[in-house]
């Protein structure tokens, strides 16, 4: 990262961690309970979250929030902690004009222009006298905020330039995902030798799952204090790369690193569609950046396709 001379505030790409930790927290207390005479009494943890405003949400991350919405709020059972945080959130998206080396939102259809879901969406225009912003208003709450911000009706030329800069960004993506037919590619190549190849490199560290803005898996732990009379249940982020993730009496279903990488990638790009009606990848590139051995899912997919029968 380096500071530019032009005063641009958003000339960076998606940050090292997404907004996920604020909405789908790494550690959530679900309830606690006290032993009573013969039984116990449970107290549900009522969500009492702070209200957040997220400034600078990239289009890929905006889509990732929508993807998690579907997982955690779209089914029969709604995650109350997530919902409370999500409903209170005010989102200021910033369209991308400076894509990075590991970005491929265009391939995944998630950027560089923000899709629905924002309260406000900025496009940064940088001139000699500093940055200015063309603002798209997405909601009434967004309009109410803008009423207090020094602003005027955007000039047609500024809007045109803003749209053009975002369009131009689409041609400068650092990575490309051969996105067509991904779902079938995953389903039809579960026995590909490519999985052995990636397993030679993958450390099963789980970094990719921790930084991925859509990964949602959790485990729960039940504990007591030393008296044994006070119990708590906590929900913690978990990773499908963890050996115990698939624990069953009698052994772990996914004992090999190969099967765990395969689970991650085929879920993200394939079976997510079956389960939640969309892809689980938004093309933010974080998993590529954070992988300690440089595994790049776009390259793995290209290899899978090249080696497919």
């Amino acid at each position: 990262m380096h500071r530019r001379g032009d005063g641009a505030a958003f000339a960076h790409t998606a940050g090292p961690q997404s907004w996920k930790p604020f909405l789908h927290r790494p550690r959530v207390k679900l309830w606690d309970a006290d032993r009573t005479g013969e039984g116990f009494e449970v107290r549900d943890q009522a969500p009492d979250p702070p209200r957040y405003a997220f400034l600078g949400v990239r289009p890929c991350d905006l889509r990732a929030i929508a993807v998690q919405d579907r997982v955690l709020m779209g089914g029969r059972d709604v995650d109350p902690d997530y919902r409370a945080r999500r409903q209170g959130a005010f989102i200021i998206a910033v369209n991308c004009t400076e894509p990075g080396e590991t970005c491929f939102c265009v391939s995944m259809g998630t950027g560089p222009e923000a899709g629905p879901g924002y309260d406000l969406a900025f496009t940064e225009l940088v001139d000699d006298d500093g940055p200015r912003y063309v603002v798209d208003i997405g909601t009434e709450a967004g309009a109410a905020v803008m009423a207090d911000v020094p602003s005027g009706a955007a000039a047609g030329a500024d809007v045109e330039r803003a749209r053009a800069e975002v369009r131009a960004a689409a041609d400068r993506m650092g990575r490309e995902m051969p996105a067509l037919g991904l779902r079938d590619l995953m389903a039809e190549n579960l026995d590909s030798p490519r999985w052995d190849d990636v397993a030679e490199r993958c450390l099963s560290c789980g970094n990719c799952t921790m930084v991925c803005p859509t990964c949602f898996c959790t485990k729960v732990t039940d504990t007591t204090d030393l008296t044994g009379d006070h119990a708590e249940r906590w929900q913690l982020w978990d990773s499908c790369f963890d050996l115990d993730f698939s624990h069953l009496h009698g052994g772990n279903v996914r004992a090999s690193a190969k099967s765990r990488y395969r689970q991650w990638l085929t879920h993200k790009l394939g079976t997510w569609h079956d389960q939640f009606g969309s892809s689980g990848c938004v093309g933010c590139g974080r998993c590529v950046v954070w992988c300690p051995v440089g595994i790049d899912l776009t390259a793995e997919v290209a290899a899978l396709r090249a080696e497919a029968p």
Partner: protein
Amino acid sequence: MAPVPYRVVAKRAETAETVTLTLAPVGAAIPEPEPGQFTMMYAFGIGEVPISVSRTRPVLEQTIRAVGAVTGALCRAEAGQVIGLRGPFGTGWGVDEARGRDLVLAAGGIGLAPLRPAILRALARRDDYGRVAVLIGARTPGDLLFEDELETWRARGAQVEVTVDRPAPGWTGHVGLITALAGSADVDPSRAAAYVCGPEIMMRLTAQALAGLGTHPGRIRVSLERSMRCGIGWCGHCQLGPLLICRDGPVVPYESAVPLMAVKEL
């Protein structure tokens, strides 16, 4: 996510390591489960695990084999003790929609527990079904669940066949794999619905045998098991390919389970 307190009102030892608990709500109750559904059972301070319902009415029963920390604690629960329940979750066998058909219910080991409510439901509405065959496989005669009930099932019009892997002195029944029993089910395979529950290998072979005899694979159902931490589709642990087993299962058509069970470590 909070467990609902249930009192153990009766406890019956089924085998050396398996007990059946009869449960009654301390206060509010969970909705009545469908045969094939499961609950998340909580042992205070120890943990929570998925356990199928082994009787849905007039009382709730669950049958648990002690294999680890939580199931061990649940099996040690005595009458009067309070445990927690969430649920019911998942898909059922679909006994009601199979009315008019012959039924084959094939169980391996603890797999008889989730099938028992289906058997009881069919026998309670005996006239709604054609012939009913219950095929049971156990390791040894001592591992047989619900042994004292089998006669009642027979008396109420079910064919009940039992086979063991290793007979004990005095055993006069079948010996061998349950797959070999498939042919002895006295039903018309072409109009039968079949429910199979047990270890994956047992389900694969038994379902295959039943399909081979002429039962449409779309009417053969199996019950799948994977790690489950929430039961409500948030935790991601119970994935099997496209399925979230807590939500899309545990009971699934054999047709959709076959390709998934065939992939190692999926």
